[in-house]
């Protein structure tokens, strides 16, 4: 789709919400909005797309109380602002939106969390992503390094980039709007997403990308939407399997969960962002004992997070139940860089080749 048509669609969807309220008020009804409830209890597996999306549960807010009326008023102001932004072909960040609301009197946001949540609500109502409204997030996308050539439409024209030959050691940074990137050609067998910068650099230094035909993606912790979108695009457009390599603790499993199944906060975007075929490499709780890795004791927070994952529908598989239960028994966690205890080459020469072939990727 061209930029023009996507902008027209975004405006149509936004104005559609206002039109709905207009009709309600003309008919003598209070304006209202209906939305799926955004909780862990209300996400369900969608067979068709293979991702986790919001379920059937809906809640309706009508302007019958001051709080809800104010919410709708704020949404109306945001719609008015975005409509104008689309018409003028401008863009703004989430933080700028928050500051712009300063001039909206009653409709002013109390905190940025409030405006961020409201934008997520609008994504759900319009079935579009915030990038379609020309809203940019603050955070950086992750880095890519590997045998991949792509073309990016920038504000200053098109750029063709090879992610090994045309970039420095920091790799190619993924832009906020991944829809502006087109993959041209590649010489890769799989994509491996890595949680920490240390491990990303280790794989690069050891030439893992060249030896095994891997595209390395540094997640930088909990991956930004653009990173997840890029992973999904590589998996879908290029048909490359995706492996996720993180630390061995509950928070890292959630990183995997958000890549493979979608996050609870953005379950409305799961189809765009989640890669259902993604596979978890490790560190698995069983690796800690199998390789005798240096480890730390689980904190109370870790234990609570693991227990929460046992009731999370996204982790309701035999594999995860076994691994999480095992970890709760061992009461230990390890970082991915703990493999260094067996030498700097161990992870690229032994662990990853063995584990990836076990998973059927190599």
């Amino acid at each position, binding site marked *: 789709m061209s930029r023009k048509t996507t902008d027209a669609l975004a405006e149509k969807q936004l104005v559609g919400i*206002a039109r709905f309220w*207009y009709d309600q*008020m003309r008919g003598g009804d209070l*304006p209202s909005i209906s939305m799926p409830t955004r909780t862990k209890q209300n996400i369900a597996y969608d067979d068709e797309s293979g991702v986790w999306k919001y379920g059937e549960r809906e809640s309706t807010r009508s302007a019958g*109380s*001051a709080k809800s*009326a*104010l919410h709708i*008023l704020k949404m109306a102001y945001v719609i008015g602002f975005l409509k104008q932004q689309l018409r003028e072909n401008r863009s703004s960040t989430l933080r700028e939106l928050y500051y712009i609301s300063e001039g909206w009197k*009653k409709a002013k946001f109390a905190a940025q969390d409030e405006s961020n949540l409201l934008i997520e609500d609008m994504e759900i109502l319009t079935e579009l992503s915030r990038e379609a409204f020309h809203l940019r997030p603050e955070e950086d996308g992750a880095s890519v390094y590997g045998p991949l050539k792509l073309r990016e439409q920038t504000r200053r024209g098109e750029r063709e980039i090879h992610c090994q030959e045309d970039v420095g050691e920091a790799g190619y940074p993924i832009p906020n709007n991944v829809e502006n990137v087109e993959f041209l050609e590649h010489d890769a067998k799989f994509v491996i997403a890595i949680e920490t910068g240390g491990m990303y650099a280790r794989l690069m230094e050891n030439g893992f990308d060249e030896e095994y035909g891997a595209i390395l993606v540094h997640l930088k912790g909990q991956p930004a939407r653009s990173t997840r979108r890029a992973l999904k695009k590589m998996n879908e457009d290029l048909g490359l399997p995706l492996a996720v390599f993180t630390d061995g603790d509950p928070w890292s499993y959630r990183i995997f969960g958000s890549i493979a199944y979608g996050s609870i906060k953005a379950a409305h975007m799961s189809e765009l962002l989640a890669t259902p075929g993604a596979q978890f490499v490790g560190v698995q709780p069983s690796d800690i004992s199998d390789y005798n890795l240096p480890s730390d004791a689980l904190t109370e927070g870790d234990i609570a997070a693991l227990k929460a994952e046992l009731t999370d529908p996204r982790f309701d598989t035999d594999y995860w139940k076994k691994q999480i239960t095992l970890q709760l028994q061992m009461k230990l966690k390890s970082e991915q860089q703990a493999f260094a205890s067996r030498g700097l080459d161990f992870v690229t020469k032994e662990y990853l080749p063995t584990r990836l072939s076990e998973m059927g990727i190599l």
Partner: protein
Amino acid sequence: MLAEDLAKQQRSISVAEFFEKNKHLLGFDSPTRGIITTIKEAVDNSLDACEEAQVLPDIFVAVTRLDKDVFRIVVEDNGPGIVPENVPFVFGKLLYGSRFHQIRQSRGQQGIGISAAVLYAQLTTGVPTKVISRTSARKPAHYFELMITTETNDPDIRAHREIEWDRMHGTRVEIEFKATLAAKKRLLDYLRYTAVVNPHARIRGEIDGEPCTFERVSDEVPPCPKAIAPHPHGIEFGLLKRMAEASDAKLGEFLIEGFSRVGAKSAEEILHVAGLKGTKKASSLSSQELKSLLDAMQAVQVPPPPASQCLSPIGEELIVQGIEKEYPVDFIKAKTRKSSVYSGHPFIVEAALAYGGKLPAEGQAQMLRFANRVPLLYQQGACAITNAVSGVNWKAYNLSQQGLPAGPVMVLVHVASTNVPFTSESKDAVAAIPEIEKEVTLALQELGRELKTYLNRRDRSRQQEDRARAICAIIPDIAAKVCEIVEQPVVDTAPLEGRIMRRLVAKKRTLDGQVEISVHNYTAKPVSLSLSLLSPDAAQDAIPKPDFVDRVGDDYTKVWKCALEPETSWTARYAGNGGGTLDVRGVDDRVKVVVDLDV
């Protein structure tokens, strides 16, 4: 030889000596407590005496700093006074009292109280206690300076003379001892709490130069509780033995005359169970026989003791008055339970629950505990009353709870009994007696239900207001913005107001120096009403003109009268700055909504 050596050191200990070494038993364990304990004992005595004489109490309390850590405490009352022969004993002998042997509700019981303060004064400053007492206008007042001879627990009269005194009758005691006023707030609390449960008393204080007055709100002296005979379920071996020895009646008669609620039938049953003959002389019983008699007395069913004579609850109405005069609150309800019994001792539980007003909105509820109309100030955590309050599920009554209920709440509990079971001699906390805890719980649950009804009603009207605000103040803005987005003329949201509200809606709005007051009648009936607006604007250019304008200080009250058919509206405008309060009269609260859009 050793036994003989020891024998030389063995001797009896006088109570005065004993208490000299065990001050904590009397509430004199710390210098901060000394002042409160002394005032408490003296005020208790004054209130008891006034009640016995059926006089409206007028009590004066003064605490004056004489030196860095020396204070003079004065308590003066208009009670019946003490006959001069008895004054030295009341103030100069420990464990001397008139109420100890009687079975009825009274504030002071042991009779250690005030003489303990005299002892404490002589231990810390060596200054004798000064007492003035006068029993009637026809008799002179007597002045005493007293100390206690600790070795023998006898009064030591340092001075005694007749003097002129302006009171017709009453007692004044002046004590000097070492103390601190660190607990001044608690002392004021004590006086305030005392005023709450004694609404018939007027208490004036002058605490370290700061005057305070707690006025009386009731002119009725509560009836003085009458003493009753002991109840067979509440008697112990020692007392039974003494009563039997002192009696010259036959056993049957002894039981009927000596105990409350024992008739011929119960007496017969007791004697049957004990295996004793009713014709036997009570004084001739052996210890073994007394023992079986006691067991039988406790085993046989006897009606509960006559609580109405010996107990004097404050009453629901007076508790409410007492709290309202000291604390401005939004909700207050009191409950006096029926009398009940534990171990043969009759008791009555009273409770009150207050909410809102000036009570602090955050933190735990304020607790007011009373036993026989005496405030309990210390050891709140160890008290059965506190346990019972914490044991109630306050969340069921829409209050938050962290042990005690939390929020702008005050809980008052009064336990009245012929024998309040305290945890220790300092009488700070009620012991955990299941019967008492149960009564407290039941009283509070009943009050909790009433509070819930009140809170629900209040929340409903708040919800109404919130709804009105949303519909009248925010929806027009939504309409304006939405119409701008869809590029259509602004929709009129007035029908929306009407449909949702179905009420009479009065609005005030100030825009660009114009004040607009509008009234819409969305009800199905015609209404006639008067609108009154109190604000700084004179509104001389108002259209229509107010029917009535009155200047109140810097403000003007403007009154318009209007009659509205259903589905019609009325508007008045004038130049001004707005503000003030709009009031609608002549319309039932349930069908009217007043919205101030300037707020």
